[in-house]
């Protein structure tokens, strides 16, 4: 039985790896789901075809990052997995149901003819919307903390439901819509691109608003978080996070109005990264906020070591062929689709 416990900080490495996997999921499925959120507002059916085609080869791989986040959490931090899943039972199931409708729409929409196609248009839209909203609600409930007793969840079935989680749900919907819109600016042209540009600058304001609310509410709600951000000298070390975020917003706005195609998407990723880093700083070192740290929840070192070997070999490979697929399907999306 081998273990790297002696010379590697395994729980910290896995905290970082799961965090990275989850962030990649948020980004990659974020623009897929964002597309679904914007779907019914597109100016024409041909635009919708282009939107769908622009992500059809990727969505499956993108969703796999969610499976890696869930499976990785089970493997590396089984205690956290065992507490969070019952705690978020209803929103997790609703998210999964949303993802089912979203996922099958890719296949069914192009097979359907006539009026039944509308069904899958709406399955795609409402599936994406529900999945995004539920992910946001889970985030909101998560940062407010989960009731734990011993090694299991001790709260009620609807603990996750409150005004704050509804707000974060809406926030994530707008955030994903920004990713989706800027993705479209990059991957389409003509009227689809023009429309996506308008959408992007419209939702950009909302994203800023919600990001502001979350940033202010976190320290207001929790004294530890407040102390972390506003004590000296931390304030000066952490000040670049909000400043950088604010400048990213300005740059996205300018780029959208100057016809840049790729940069708005990359900088939207930057906005998400900043938000994610901000959350990470606020919640350090909790894996289940204010109850269980990542060290407490860690699986036994031999288990974390075994999976680390596989991850060290496979993750670079996975990233390489994922990048290969994005390269292979580069260029602007076509509407070619109907039977």
């Amino acid at each position, binding site marked *: 039985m081998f273990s790297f416990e002696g010379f590697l900080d395994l729980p910290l490495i896995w905290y970082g790896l799961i965090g990275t996997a989850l962030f990649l999921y948020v980004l990659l499925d974020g623009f897929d789901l964002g597309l679904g959120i914007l779907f019914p507002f597109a100016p024409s059916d041909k635009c919708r075809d282009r939107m769908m085609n622009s992500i059809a080869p990727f969505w499956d791989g993108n969703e796999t990052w969610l*499976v890696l986040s869930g499976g990785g959490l089970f493997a590396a931090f*089984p205690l956290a997995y065992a507490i969070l899943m019952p705690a978020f039972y209803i929103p997790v*199931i609703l998210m999964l149901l949303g993802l089912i409708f979203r996922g099958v729409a890719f296949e069914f929409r192009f097979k359907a003819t006539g009026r039944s196609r509308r069904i899958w248009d709406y399955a795609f839209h409402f599936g994406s919307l529900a999945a995004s909203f539920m992910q946001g609600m889970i985030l909101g409930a998560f940062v407010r903390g989960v009731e734990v007793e011993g090694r299991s969840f001790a709260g009620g079935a609807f603990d996750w439901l409150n005004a704050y989680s509804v707000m974060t749900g809406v926030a994530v919907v707008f955030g994903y819509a920004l990713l989706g819109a800027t993705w479209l600016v990059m991957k389409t042209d003509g009227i689809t691109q023009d429309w996506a540009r308008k959408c992007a600058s419209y939702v950009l304001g909302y994203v800023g608003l919600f990001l502001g609310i979350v940033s202010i509410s976190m320290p207001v709600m929790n004294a530890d978080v407040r102390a972390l951000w506003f004590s000296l000298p931390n304030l000066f070390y952490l000040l670049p996070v909000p400043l950088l975020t604010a400048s990213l917003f300005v740059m996205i706005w300018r780029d959208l109005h100057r016809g840049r195609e790729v940069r708005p998407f990359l900088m939207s990723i930057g906005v998400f990264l900043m938000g994610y880093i901000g959350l990470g700083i606020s919640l350090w070192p909790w894996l289940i906020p204010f109850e269980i740290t990542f060290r407490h929840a860690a699986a036994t070192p031999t288990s974390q070591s075994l999976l680390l070997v596989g991850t060290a070999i*496979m993750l670079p490979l996975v990233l390489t062929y994922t990048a290969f*697929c994005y390269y292979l399907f580069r260029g602007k999306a*076509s509407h070619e689709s109907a039977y």
Partner: protein
Amino acid sequence: MIESLDPVLLARIQFAFTISFHIVFPAFTIGLASWLAVLEWRWLATGNPVYAEVYRMWVKIFAVTFGMGVVSGVVMSFQFGTNWSVFSDKVGNVLGPLLGYEVLTAFFLEASFLGVMLFGWNRVSPRMHFTATLIVAGGTLVSAFWILSADSWMQTPTGFRVAEDGLFYPTNWLEVIFNPSFAYRFVHMVTAAYLTTAFVVGGIGAFYLWRGLHVKHARVMFGMAMIMAVSVAPLQLLLGDRHGLNTLEHQPAKVSAMEGLWETQEGAPLLLFGWPDQEGETTRYALEIPKLSSLILTHDLDGEVKGLKEWPGDERPPVAWVFWSFRVMVGIGMLMILTGLAAIGLFLRKRLFDTRWFQYLCMAMTPTGFVAVLAGWFVTEIGRQPYIVYGAMRTEEAVSPVMGTSIALSLAAFILTYGFVFGAGSYYILRLIGKGPDAEEAPYGAHGVKDPPLVTRLVSKEGDQDV
């Protein structure tokens, strides 16, 4: 009323529902991916366009099935925690890495190269496309490897210890992964997946032959399927027998339930049919063949076979479920072997492709593989009860602290959603079958697109109006 429902039973029903629905799709795609690889290889080797046309028809069916497999599979990765959180907490150290490896080594591979397989026709060389098909086929097998290893560990756990804190800790990874029942289960399941696909393909081929449609293509489908029925169906009987003997060694109570035997006896009879009565501790209306059970299980006419009464009442699985599921599985296996034998006979008389009654038979056999796969899983999973980890952790200790109401509502939501979504999927697959292989269609047809380029437009076409 819902409050009075037993959360353990509800959690089991809900889990059984989602996983039974899910397994249907991998059972089909494991076989289909390998068969598509064979088709593409024949196409590249012979240049015969019929192979390519058959490939293009079935790759669309593959895409629909795979999509449904993905979405129902994502559900499974959360179900362990939502339904069995105590189990997840306790065995996470042992099973977690296995599932992690499945994601890392199989899911990403399948998902990424499926994109190339479906949309890459005009973007990669035929050789690279063939490689993508091979990778997807390999990915389905790697995925089966890990998930069956995890399931087998729950059946025959080895390489672990239970510490004072009640958690399971691994002591030997090779013993965990290659636990005693894993090799048997893996081979048995992959073979089952191949047979399931063969009988679907054969049934559709028979349908076309019967209607006189797409005859060239239908002969490829039907012929290849019959090769599988002839060679693999008898092999499966042998593999199943080996798996059964392995179960007898490690989970004898399951085998007693499969046989419906209550009394330990020498020269035990084989019960063909009967009605196991759990309370009465007997199998009613039994139709027996003397001594055959002893012969099959011990390879001796007077060998001793243990009966269910060897175990206390709360250690026995629900016998009727196991007993009947086993008979359904074996019965279908026998029908598949008979189909193969009939195919040999007809082939020797040069009537394989134009015998009406045989075409009817093959059409009727189309869905039987799925039924047999599900029945087989019922045997092994229900036969493991009342344990979730055999001999080490009981199912009722594993359940999440979630209200029965939540589980009941989510079960209802899953039934409605799966019924609607997968009903639609079946309908679209039937339409694709109705349409048949299309010689006129461009290879980009995987997603219904007639002309290249499929996904992205590198060069604008003339007269391409932007609307």
